C-alpha cells in the first residue's frame, strides 16, 4: 500500500476543508472533494513531484483518465440528446455525469493495479467512507445520526475484514448488491413506476464499485496452508444466509399495501393507457385543467395508478402551481407522490418556497443522488411534515441551519433537528 506522501497530505487537507464546509455552510464542498481526488493525477501530469510516480503508475493514470474521458463524453452526448428531446436538465445532471466519470477513473486505476488484496478493500473502504460521511452530513438527532452512519461504518468494517478474509468479504458484498437490486427493483415494480433518475444514479455509483470489489475479492488467491487466517466456510455461509434473510425481509416490507380506487378509465376527462408491462400499472392523462380528488390539477398532468389500481403519484408536463405550491415538472423522474385519496404526500418544489414558515429547498438531482431527500412531505391529514431548509432560519425558537432537514410531528411541533 502506498505510504502517505506530500500529495497525500495536500489532498487530505483539501478533503478536511471540504468536510468543514459541508458541516458549516453546505456549499462547494463536493467540488473540493473532486479537487482533492484529482490533485495527484493533475500534479503528476504536469510533471511536478516526478519522484512520487514511476512510469507504470503514470501509464495507469493516463489509461484511467482516458476511460473517464470516454464516460464523460458519452454522458454529455446522452444529456444532449435528452435535452434535444425536451427534457429539462439542471446542473446536477452534469455533476452526476462528472461523478460517473470519476468513479470510472478510480475503478480503472485500481483494477490496473491488479492486486485483489489492494483493490477490493480499498473500494469497500471508499464506499463505506463516503456513505458514512454523507450519513454524518445528513445530521439529525443523535439516534438518527447513528442510524445514518451505521451502514457506511459497516462497509468500512467489511473492507478491513476483506484484507484477512477476502473471499468471504467478496461473497457478502455480492449478496448485499443482489439484495439491494432485488429490493429496489421489487419496490419499483410494486409502485408501478421506474426508479427516479437520482436513485438510479446513486445505485450506479454505489453498486458498480461494490460489484467490482466483490468480484476481485472472490478471485483473490487462496491463503497458503498453515497461514494464520481464520476458517471462512462456516462464517461465510452464516453471514450470507443472514444477509439474504435480512435483505429479503427488508424488500418484502417495502411493498406497500394495495388499497384504493381503480384508474378513471371511463372518465371522459382522462386518457388512460396501461403501460407495456402490466406490472407497471396505468397512466391517465388529464386532458384539461380540472379538479381531481379535490385538488385542481393542470391539463397534461399524468396520474399514475399501480398494478393494483392505487393512485400513487402524478407528474406535471412543466412546472405548475398546484395547491398553492409551484411544483417541478417536465420529465419522468419527477413524481409528485400522493396518498391513495389524492392528498399530497411528497412533493418536489420547482423553486425554494416557504411552507408554514419553513424556507424549503427546490428539486435537485444532487440532493436525491446523495440520499439527502429534499422533497416537501405532508401527513395524510394534509399537515406539513418536513423539508430541507433552503437557508438559516428560526422555527419555534430553534435555529435551523441551511441544508438541515426540518421535521414536524403530527401536532405541528418541531421534531428534528432536536
Amino acid at each position, binding site marked *: 500500500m*502506498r505510504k502517505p506522501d506530500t500529495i497525500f497530505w495536500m489532498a487530505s487537507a483539501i478533503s478536511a476543508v471540504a468536510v468543514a464546509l459541508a458541516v458549516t455552510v453546505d456549499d462547494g464542498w463536493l467540488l473540493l472533494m473532486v479537487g482533492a481526488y484529482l490533485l495527484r493525477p493533475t500534479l503528476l501530469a504536469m510533471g511536478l513531484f516526478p*519522484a512520487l510516480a*514511476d*512510469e*507504470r*503508475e503514470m501509464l495507469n493514470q493516463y489509461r484511467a483518465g482516458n476511460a473517464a474521458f470516454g464516460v464523460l463524453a458519452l454522458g454529455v452526448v446522452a444529456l444532449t440528446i435528452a435535452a434535444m428531446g425536451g427534457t429539462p436538465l439542471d446542473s446536477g445532471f452534469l455533476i452526476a455525469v462528472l461523478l460517473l466519470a470519476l468513479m470510472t477513473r478510480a475503478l480503472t486505476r485500481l483494477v490496473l*493495479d*491488479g*492486486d485483489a488484496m489492494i483493490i477490493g478493500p480499498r473500494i469497500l473502504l471508499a464506499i463505506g467512507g463516503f456513505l458514512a460521511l454523507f450519513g454524518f452530513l445528513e445530521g439529525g438527532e443523535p439516534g438518527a445520526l447513528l442510524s445514518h452512519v451505521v451502514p457506511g461504518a459497516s462497509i468500512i468494517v467489511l473492507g478491513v475484514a476483506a484484507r484477512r478474509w477476502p473471499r468471504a468479504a467478496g461473497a457478502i458484498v455480492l449478496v448485499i448488491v443482489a439484495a439491494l437490486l432485488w429490493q429496489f427493483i421489487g419496490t419499483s415494480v410494486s409502485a408501478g413506476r421506474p426508479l427516479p433518475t437520482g436513485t438510479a444514479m446513486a445505485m450506479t455509483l454505489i453498486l458498480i464499485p461494490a460489484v467490482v470489489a466483490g468480484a476481485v475479492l472472490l478471485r483473490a488467491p487462496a491463503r497458503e496452508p498453515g497461514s494464520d487466517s481464520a476458517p471462512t466456510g462456516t462464517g461465510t455461509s452464516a453471514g450470507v444466509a443472514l444477509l439474504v434473510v435480512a435483505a429479503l425481509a427488508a424488500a418484502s416490507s417495502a411493498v406497500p399495501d394495495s388499497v384504493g380506487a381503480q384508474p378513471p378509465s371511463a372518465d371522459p376527462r382522462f386518457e388512460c393507457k396501461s403501460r407495456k408491462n402490466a406490472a407497471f400499472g396505468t397512466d391517465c392523462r388529464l386532458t384539461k385543467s380540472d379538479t381531481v380528488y379535490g385538488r385542481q390539477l393542470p391539463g397534461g398532468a399524468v396520474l399514475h395508478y399501480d398494478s393494483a389500481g392505487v393512485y400513487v403519484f402524478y407528474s406535471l408536463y412543466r412546472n405548475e402551481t398546484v395547491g398553492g405550491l409551484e411544483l417541478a415538472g417536465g420529465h419522468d423522474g419527477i413524481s409528485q407522490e400522493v396518498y391513495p385519496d389524492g392528498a399530497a404526500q411528497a412533493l418536489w418544489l420547482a423553486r425554494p418556497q416557504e411552507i408554514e414558515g419553513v424556507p424549503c429547498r427546490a428539486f435537485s438531482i444532487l440532493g436525491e443522488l446523495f440520499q439527502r431527500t429534499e422533497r416537501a412531505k405532508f401527513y395524510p391529514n394534509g399537515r406539513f411534515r418536513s423539508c430541507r431548509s433552503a437557508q438559516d432560519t428560526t422555527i419555534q425558537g430553534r435555529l435551523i441551519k441551511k441544508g438541515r432537514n426540518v421535521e414536524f410531528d403530527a401536532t405541528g411541533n418541531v421534531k428534528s433537528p432536536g
Partner: protein
Amino acid sequence: MRQHVRSLRFARGEKSQADLAARVGVSRQTIVAIEKGDYSPSVKLALLLARALNTTVEKLFELEARDHA
C-alpha cells in the same frame, strides 16, 4: 515477451522486490507487475534493471515467437 527478472534477482544475491525497486527508482508494485508479465518496462527502466542485476537487457528480456511482427 519473456522476462527473467525474478530468476536473476535470486541469482544475484536474492535481492528483495523492494530492494530492487529502490535501486531502480520504481515502486515494488511495478517490479511485481514486471515479474508477472503484466507490464513491459520502458527502455530506460529495462537498462536500469539490467545494471542493477549485473546483466544485459537481452538476458533479462527476450522476445517470444508471438511477439515477432
